[in-house]
């Protein structure tokens, strides 16, 4: 490999915390897990925390006047505080627990959207949104008569910021965009976009699913109105996600779901909503999952988001170099300095599914398809791409395996 600066992380030590990374597949091949944009693996500390809560502290939260419920409630509240500090929100009640990014965005589209968006209003997205930050807005538009507009993606895989400026009008109610594309990896210049959106009087929702796990997030510095992300993409359990919203916005939002927890008082004639965060968390919440997320955040902060970001940048740069050396390989998206640890590519004349299948037989897990971004693939002019995505437990030695794996794919198909 090319000489690269050394990684700031002791990856060997980190990997010992992740039992699944020692898996051997298809006989005795070491597993190389490059599907981290879909979901990450979790360290022993997170897995053990779930067991410990169920064995020693578990009961339903709130209202319980018994010892276990108090334990459980304290741990659940502590998890919320950990998330608050992690994203530097002002107040813990600005952190709403959901099932994941998808539910967080739907919550905003349903609750805030139905209350504030009307016929003729505009919702501004980008061409590189994941379906979870696209369909909820299409549904909102269908309910209200609003119009969805899209900031185009340049051929280099960046957002066309001139077009953004033109598309922002006094009718734009919200700009909903990803912080990092799950296909191209592109990091978008959030501060600039948020500033322009606010000048136009629009709110901003940031889909942080691919950014929050990989780089430090500061919602106050970012000045976004809403931020959504998922626990399972940052080593937490599945079924837990976060919606951050500025308190003054969340306070005016009608409850998305009705039921237990979200009320102060119920009579046969109606109900009175509880205060934040409960008003937006109906029903028994994902208690243990939230606590596990808190433990994952502890782990991330101990390793250090800045070091994680730097390590992943080294991996991505190395992966770009490998792909550039393979004839017929085409990489989508910008140069490594503008992107997250995601590399989507095609091999000339070979379908992405065949690439992924042949990679799998060599122990390398990558994803193939449209990665829940069909409109973006249409824009790129391909039906499917193969995608390798990294996390801080991946190693340069694993990246080196991409080259031989790609050659193996090519040699399988004689005409390639």
């Amino acid at each position, binding site marked *: 490999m090319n000489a690269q600066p050394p990684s700031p992380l002791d990856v060997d030590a980190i990997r010992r915390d992740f039992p699944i990374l020692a898996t051997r597949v298809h006989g005795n091949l070491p597993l190389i897990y490059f599907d981290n944009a879909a979901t990450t693996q979790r360290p022993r500390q997170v897995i053990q925390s779930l067991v410990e809560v169920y064995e020693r502290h578990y009961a339903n939260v709130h209202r319980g006047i018994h010892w276990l419920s108090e334990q459980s409630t304290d741990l659940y509240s502590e998890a919320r505080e950990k998330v608050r500090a992690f994203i530097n929100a002002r107040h813990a009640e600005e952190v709403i627990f959901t099932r994941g990014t998808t539910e967080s965005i739907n919550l905003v589209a349903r609750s805030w959207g139905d209350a504030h968006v009307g016929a003729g209003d505009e919702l501004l997205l980008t061409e590189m949104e994941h379906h979870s930050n696209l369909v909820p807005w299409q549904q909102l538009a269908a309910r209200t008569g609003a119009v969805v507009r899209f900031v185009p993606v340049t051929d280099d895989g960046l957002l066309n910021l001139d077009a953004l400026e033109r598309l922002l009008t006094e009718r734009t109610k919200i700009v909903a965009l990803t912080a990092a594309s799950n296909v191209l990896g592109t990091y978008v210049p959030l501060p600039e976009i948020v500033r322009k959106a606010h000048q136009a009087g629009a709110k901003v929702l940031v889909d942080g699913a691919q950014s929050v796990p990989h780089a430090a997030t500061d919602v106050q510095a970012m000045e976004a109105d809403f931020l959504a992300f998922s626990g399972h993409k940052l080593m937490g359990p599945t079924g837990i996600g976060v919606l951050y919203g500025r308190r003054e916005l969340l306070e005016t939002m009608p409850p998305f779901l009705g039921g237990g927890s979200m009320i102060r008082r119920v009579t046969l004639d109606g109900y009175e909503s509880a205060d934040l965060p409960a008003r937006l968390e109906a029903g028994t919440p994902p208690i243990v999952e939230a606590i596990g997320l808190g433990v994952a955040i502890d782990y991330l902060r101990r390793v250090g988001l800045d070091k994680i970001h730097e390590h992943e940048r080294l991996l991505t740069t190395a992966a770009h170099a490998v792909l550039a050396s393979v004839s017929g390989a085409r990489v989508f998206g910008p140069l490594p300095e503008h992107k997250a640890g995601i590399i989507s590519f095609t091999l000339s004349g070979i*379908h992405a*599914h065949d690439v992924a299948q042949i990679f799998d037989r060599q122990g390398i897990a990558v994803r193939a398809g*449209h990665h829940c971004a*069909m409109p973006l*693939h249409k824009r790129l002019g*391909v*039906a499917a791409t193969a995608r390798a995505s990294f996390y801080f437990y991946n190693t340069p030695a694993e990246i080196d395996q991409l080259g031989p794996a790609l050659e193996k794919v090519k040699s399988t198909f004689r005409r390639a």
Partner: protein
Amino acid sequence: MDDIYQERILDHYEQPYHRGRLPRATHAHQDDNPLCGDFVHVDLTIGPEGKVQEAWFQGDGCCISQAAASMLMEAIEGRDVEELKRFTPEQMLELFGPKLTPNRQKCCLLAWRVVQAALYAPVGEKPPG
């Protein structure tokens, strides 16, 4: 390496049987797998005696979807239409050969699905529904 990419399948993928359009088709249908973007178009001529005289396909997609289409075209020529309507997905998977995971079975069954629809889709008439 398992045998998905064995010679017989690669042969069908790289030198497919009856790949192209059939201008005199009496029956035709096209469908895709949105998940992976694979598509298959099938043109058939069905004779007055109720047999498939010629079967051609056009398509784009992974090795499995395209090789399966080629194998299926070869297998259904000369066969009785009523008999083909009873041709099951299990029989298609058997025709293909190597064992496939459920995700890849969808690739293999794309051409089968298109042929089943084509048998009911005379050219020039609107498809039902």
